[in-house]
């Protein structure tokens, strides 16, 4: 068969068109596929009802549940303290929300504090090894203890004191070991992980589950119909130091 120059050019042109067309079709179908199953922009958050906490003044059920679930050590020396969730008096948590009269009523009331899982977490920005990072699909500020080098930049960056450092081997100071969760070693930083290991199994965080008063409500802040969002619409809430621009995911109903 004799191929003229004209035919050759025509055929190669058609070939090129076919390849380009196939690529275009594939690109369009990929876009269509992602549009059909949109990745829901989720953001886990918590609302703590301080009124219910006040009624149960001095209750530490949530703290105990977290300690058990996450193998948190207890050292006699307070300088070595490791904490994921802890109580602190009202006036130290919300100093700007005080008046002469609220002081009379609320001073000394314990407020449960934990990692705020900020939308804009300063600890993540400073971590030199990316041992701590914000999980983009649900907003949890994660920690990879395998990768933590113990530089403690994150502790300096966190304005909420949510992070603790293991100055010594934590194992001897753990009351009862939970085999489902690892301990940490000397020389790593740790903090609340919003029970991401429990969320992966479809459970609520240990503190939320342990609270008999249902003072802690956990859910998706991005979903306007979620439990925490309903509460935040119905009642007045506070965030810890919102002026810093970290945008905490933990809210307090006064």
């Amino acid at each position, binding site marked *: 068969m004799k191929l003229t120059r004209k035919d050759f050019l025509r055929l190669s042109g058609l070939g090129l068109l076919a390849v380009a067309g196939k690529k275009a079709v594939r690109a369009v179908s990929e876009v269509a596929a992602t549009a059909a199953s949109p990745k829901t922009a989720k953001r886990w958050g918590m609302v703590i009802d301080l009124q219910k906490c006040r009624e149960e003044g001095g209750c530490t059920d949530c703290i105990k549940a977290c300690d058990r679930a996450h193998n948190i050590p207890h050292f006699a020396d307070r300088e070595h303290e490791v904490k994921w969730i802890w109580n602190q008096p009202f006036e130290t948590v919300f100093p700007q929300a005080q008046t002469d009269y609220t002081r009379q009523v609320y001073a000394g009331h314990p407020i449960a504090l934990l990692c705020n899982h900020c939308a804009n977490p300063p600890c993540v920005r400073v971590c030199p090894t990316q041992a701590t990072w914000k999980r983009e699909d649900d907003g949890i500020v994660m920690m990879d203890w395998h990768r933590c080098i113990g530089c403690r930049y994150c502790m300096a960056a966190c304005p909420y004191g949510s992070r603790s450092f293991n100055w010594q081997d934590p194992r001897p100071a753990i009351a009862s070991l939970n*085999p489902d969760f690892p301990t940490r070693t000397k020389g790593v930083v740790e903090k609340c992980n919003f029970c991401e290991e429990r969320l992966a199994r479809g459970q609520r965080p240990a503190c939320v589950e342990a609270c008999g008063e249902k003072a802690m409500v956990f859910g998706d802040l991005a979903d306007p119909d979620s439990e925490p969002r309903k509460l935040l619409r119905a009642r007045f809430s506070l965030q810890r130091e919102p002026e810093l621009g970290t945008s905490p995911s933990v809210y307090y109903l006064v």
Partner: protein
Amino acid sequence: MRDRPLILTGLLAFVWLFTLPVWHAYAGKYSPSAPDVKLPANEKQCVAPTAYMRDSHMQLLIDWREDVVRNNRRQFTAFNGKVYDKSLTRTCLAQCHTNKGEFCDRCHAYAGVSGPYCWDCHHDKILTARSAP
């Protein structure tokens, strides 16, 4: 000829030193042919073929670790289609190798692997039971 006792003592010392690894193995109850590991009674097949697990279990565990901690992917589909939870303590140690001392540690000791630091944080049932109040 007067040096005979000295030479014999020297020779004996040399033979003893030369065969020291053998005595050491006897004392440590290692079999020189293969490590005396205790296989799980309830399960015949590991998450991957034995040959692969023997030389690459550390890589598999590191891959699992990366997947779970950093990528939030927690399911592992084995070569035979079975699906496992990617977890050293919840899967490997809890479901099959319930005694890490008789499996992991024995082989590590035999192969001269100085304890991998997994155990600094992840723990088996025995340690957990020992720590129970």
